[in-house]
């Protein structure tokens, strides 16, 4: 199970928070602060797993995070999730954002938190992984958005130019990104 998904920037400002277990607002903020504190002091070269954010869960839980340019994507998961799998899921999620926002940058997340939530809802539901196939996720998101004008209509992007998130290539050899990417046949009614 995934217990929480946090996205914050290099200064610890939350950009999206999604708890799958109830915490009061002040507790949520404390968790964000603590997580930021844990994650931000780590070098970019060190491993992406962290044990014991003491606030969430306890010993069974791990923080799995990735750092893209200005943003940290942190998943708090228990031992039933595969660490490398979640690492890959973060990559899938970020690539999905990249597709939906066309070259995603932090500003997109700032101004369209709701839409980021809707995209996340297609990936993770109630703390469980719903879909890992990027094409399927993008298709679902666009199905729902299309009547009301498309995600990409984001005027805010023009406000200021912010460095792109520099999505790194998926590392070739570990292949964890290679999870079932084919267009599924949509079953008829």
């Amino acid at each position: 199970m995934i217990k929480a998904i946090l996205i914050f920037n290099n200064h610890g400002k939350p950009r999206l928070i999604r708890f799958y277990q109830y915490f009061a607002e002040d507790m949520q903020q404390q968790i964000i602060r603590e997580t930021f504190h844990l994650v931000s002091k780590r070098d970019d070269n060190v491993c992406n797993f962290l044990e014991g954010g003491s606030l969430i869960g306890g010993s069974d839980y791990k923080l799995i995070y990735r750092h893209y340019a200005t943003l940290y994507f942190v998943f708090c998961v228990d031992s039933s999730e595969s660490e490398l799998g979640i690492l890959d899921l973060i990559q899938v999620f970020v690539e999905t954002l990249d597709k939906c926002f066309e070259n995603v940058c932090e500003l997109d997340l700032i101004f369209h938190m709701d839409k980021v939530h809707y995209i996340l809802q297609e990936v993770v539901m109630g703390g469980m992984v719903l879909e890992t196939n990027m094409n399927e996720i993008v298709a679902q998101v666009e199905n729902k958005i299309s009547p009301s004008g498309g995600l990409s209509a984001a005027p805010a992007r023009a406000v200021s130019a912010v460095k792109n998130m520099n999505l790194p290539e998926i590392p070739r050899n570990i292949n964890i990104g290679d999870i079932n990417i084919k267009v599924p046949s949509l079953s008829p009614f």
Partner: protein
Amino acid sequence: MALKIVKGSIDRMFDKNLQDLVRGIRNHKEDEAKYISTCIDEIKQELKQDNIAVKANAVCKLTYLQMLGYDVSWAAFNIVEVMSSSKFTYKRIGYLAASQCFHESTDVIMLTTNQIRKDLSSPNQYDTGVALTGLSCFVTPDLARDLANDIMTLMSHTKPYIRKKAVLIMYKVFLKYPESLRPAFPRLKEKLEDPDPGVQSAAVNVICELARRNPKNYLSLAPLFFKLMTSSTNNWVLIKIIKLFGALTPLEPRLGKKLIEPLTNLIHSTSAMSLLYECVNTVIAVLISLSSGMPNHSASIQLCVQKLRILIEDSDQNCEPSVNACMKYLGLLAMSKILKTHPKSVQSHKDLILQCLDDKDESIRLRALDLLYGMVSKKNLMEIVKKLMLHVDKAEGTTYRDELLTKIIDICSQSNYQYITNFEWYISILVELTRLEGTRHGHLIASQMLDVAIRVKAIRAFAVAQMATLLDNAHLLTGNMQRNGICEVLYAAAWICGEFSEHLENPMQTLEAMLRPKVATLPGHIQAVYVQNAAKLFATVLKSQEGNTDSTAAQETSQLMIDRLPLFVQSANLEVQERASCILQLVKYIQKLQQKDVEIAEEVNALFAGELNPVAPKAQKKVPVPEGLDLDAWINEPPSESESEDEQPKAIFAKEEPKHSRPRHTEVDEKELARRREARKQEQANNPFYIKASPSSQKVYQDTPGVEHIPVVQIDLSVPLKVPGLPMSDQYVKLEEERRQKERAEKKKKEKKKRKEKRSGRGKKHDSGPESEEDITPAHQVDIVTEEMPENALPSDDDDKDPNDPHKALDIDLDKPLADSEKLPVRSHRETPKSPAEDGDTENAALQEPKKKSTKEKREKKKDKDRDRKKSKEEKKKKKHKHEEKEEDLLGGQADAPVVQSEETSEVVAPPTSTNPEVSDLDFWLSNAPVPSNTQEATTVAEAEAAPPPEAASGTAPDSEPDQPQDADTEEAKSSKHKKKKQKKEKEEKEKKKKKKHHHHHHHSDGGGEESVQNGTVEEEEPLPPMSNYCLLAENSYIKMVYDIQGNLQDGSQVVVSVIFENKGDSFLKSMEFNVLDSLNSKLQRPDGSGPHDGLTVPFQLPPGVSNEARFVFTVQSIIMPQKLKGTLTFIVKNEDSSTHEKLDFKLHFTCTSYLITTPCYSDAFAKLLESGDLKGSSVRLEGVNMPFHHLLARICFHHHFSVVERIDSCASMYSRSIQGHHVCLLVKTSGQTVSIDAKCDEPTLLGNVLDEIKQTFSQC
């Protein structure tokens, strides 16, 4: 003008959307909080608007503010409003906000049940999807109970997108409402083989989550998962399954044997690291489970270790460095698992792991530390700890250094100091650790010092000397207030010096050290120990001084005490104060006696006589209840005031009984206890690390023959805390090496002497291996005193279980057949459609009854047989017809086993020939593993398999339409029938039964609580005749359709038509298609993308004699007129030899009544409504109505969806509301056989039609 400005600003205010809010916050960096509070005020204004778009916008902004940490729970009701918007974009905003801030104690959640149910059953899959997503975040036990059935229906939805979500959310439902697990499990299991990979993956996900906590309940699914593992190409699914197997193998070693090969293949073939890693992990789990049984898996172990080594040491240039680090981390993690069972294979990689201690990544270092913990042996402990001490010195962050410190202590103290051969060395290590600045773990070091000093008697002299030095140099530890944590060590030092003061070289010096004024700056609890132990020291000093002829020395000591103690008497700490004043008075008294030349040393010493023994932490808890003591029995019988109260306490105790199982320990009989005690003594006698509890244990130590050849280490007891150059513990490492060499030499000598001498207790295990563990003898004969436990205490491992674990409730046997009472609660007014479903059943009763009876009888019989067998039958039942062919694949090796069995032939009765009742399907599947002894067994099972028991076959027949969305309903119908047979005596049941005897059914509980109470009183007067709203739609020789129409409360333009299809013939009906010719006013809702004339596929097939219900949604524009729609049902009739295409025409009659919805109304609201004057009246008279008044009312209520507002004698007011919000009020009066109904409604045409329909209802009877 001013007005215009105001209006303009208001407009702008309402225009502010999420983006504006974000921009605004970014522009007000300095006064953000102030800006946000004005925004919140604006939002509050917006929420007061009626416009749903404005509300949605406001709620969206609130969601953003919630992320910033603002509590928005005050808007919970508005969120619910937005959730119930009919527009998807708003609805979604509402659900998002709800999922972010609703939780179990949000009270408005209760209001959402109907809204969510409506959304779940919405024809728009995105409404359903968004409701499921939202619900997954805030589901409560109540919601779970109320909606479980709806969600279960969605698991068979036509869209995979919905199926997948419905399957996933079931896990949350199970957690909140464990009773739903068993009824829902069969369908969940079905979804493992769903054609859509996403749904399959969701089902795997849910079952894996369930099985992780209670794996034993899911063992029977192993063959299915095995099949998935070998066939699936989705890495996510594979990873989940492989992880699940990892949890299952410990329970069933045979499963492990079966897994090794495919897993090894995957390890070799996969390129995905994540999958490889999980495979390695599960292989490790398998090997652990097999470790006792199968000796020859060294190849697999080697493979794993080798792959892990690659993970740890290789850094791939193509990878991000952080990903390489992740691999390293995981490699170490997996290594530590192997370590537990195969330490040898890991120990050879010690170099690699020590290397990892230098890694710049803290997580990796911590993992390496964990590994080291398991890798130590007597041989390498000192070496490893030495390395760690080096790291302690190097470590920068205090967190990591503290971690190192605790690890060193953990490593040394593990399994009762098993690996420590030289306790002097260990004490030195502890003393060295006290030099750490700013550590938080002073108390840890202190407790180790105390523990060692108390339990290892041989070391006391040395320990006391070291502690005395520590006390002398206390200023080093306390000099800096920053180092506060470490002064805890002084607590231990003072206590040890006081308690074991007989070992002190110079007690006087220590006494002085303990009474220094500086001590007063220490924390209170440490001062208290100082004072108390100063008294102990004083006693010792007195004893030594009184022997001398010169009595002045003793008096000087007393004077010293009297001089120094007042400082402590003034302490702010109560405990210090109390002890100090007590002791001060004592010393003053002693001084008086001394002045009279009375010898008092003996008596003072008697104050502190006796030895303190260590007590195990859980000792108190484990004191057994003495025999004959019943903790539950009253000491005095409570006075019984009245009989009714008497019963209450009894009930309470009956419930609580299971909690009191602990006292059962007392039942162990005396013999058994004696035997155990004996066994324990024996064990302790054989174990050199334990000593007998005899008070002379110290002598035992001295008398041990081994003591002579232990090299006597000369230690300068006055060693300063820091030895320049070489840290003290290093000396021991060298000495130890020398000692071991010496020993080895000695041993060789001894061996030459044919090992005449054998050291007691060690002789047994003495191996000749030159470097084996056991050869290393401890430098001290270590006497580790066991912690004291009460006599008879039993080891119990239930101490650590968390009673609040939600997963405990899910520990449910899933293989047991579903009992009649187990069903998901169904929404009350949905029961109406169900009962006619039963109608169908009862009409077929003649056909089905004997069959069912036999099933039941056989079930009864089965109960007698043992449980395993029952399980196996159930399993067969479930799997037989579905997995037949697949199972055959798995059985490939057993070519001679005739397993094929088609559904038709399984009807043929063949008595079970099973000769081995112990064997279940799982056993059979497992026995396929290459274990020679099992093959025989396997073939007999195969035979048993070939002839399935008849009840299995007949039992499956009624259940064989797995994909029906309604089968929960039919199940319900069936089970209520069973109830009937059981003749339950509850009144409600009785009523139901009566109704069921006729082939109709009345059910009426739509209204609110008050209303149903009124109806209850109505019914009491005289039993009501049975009623049903279902009327015939069409019928021919194959099929019969009955239908009912209900309005949709939340959506004014929708009605739901429930049609029950009943197969009347004896052929199979399939490919049913339902089509209606739309009119301008009413249209059948068809899925997106289908044309206006396309039919809807009925989502099930009908075997002979079975009926099932389908619901169709229609949109209507005007509801004031009744309407008829023509339609056709086409279907295929399939016989054994032929299949024909048939069709059946029908006319759907939408009455005005069907647009009415039973809505409870209070009399005051009703009165207001009538007073308002908006309603137009009309009236009707019914002649010749010959029925009791309450029957009349009940009929109107039931058939025309009214509720009774008030009833006075023969006059009643009734109310109903249409789906478009028209109010319909009736005043019904009766006199003799004439009934007059005065009615009012805001839509006269509607009213006229409703009255006509009411009239018609009564003219029919």
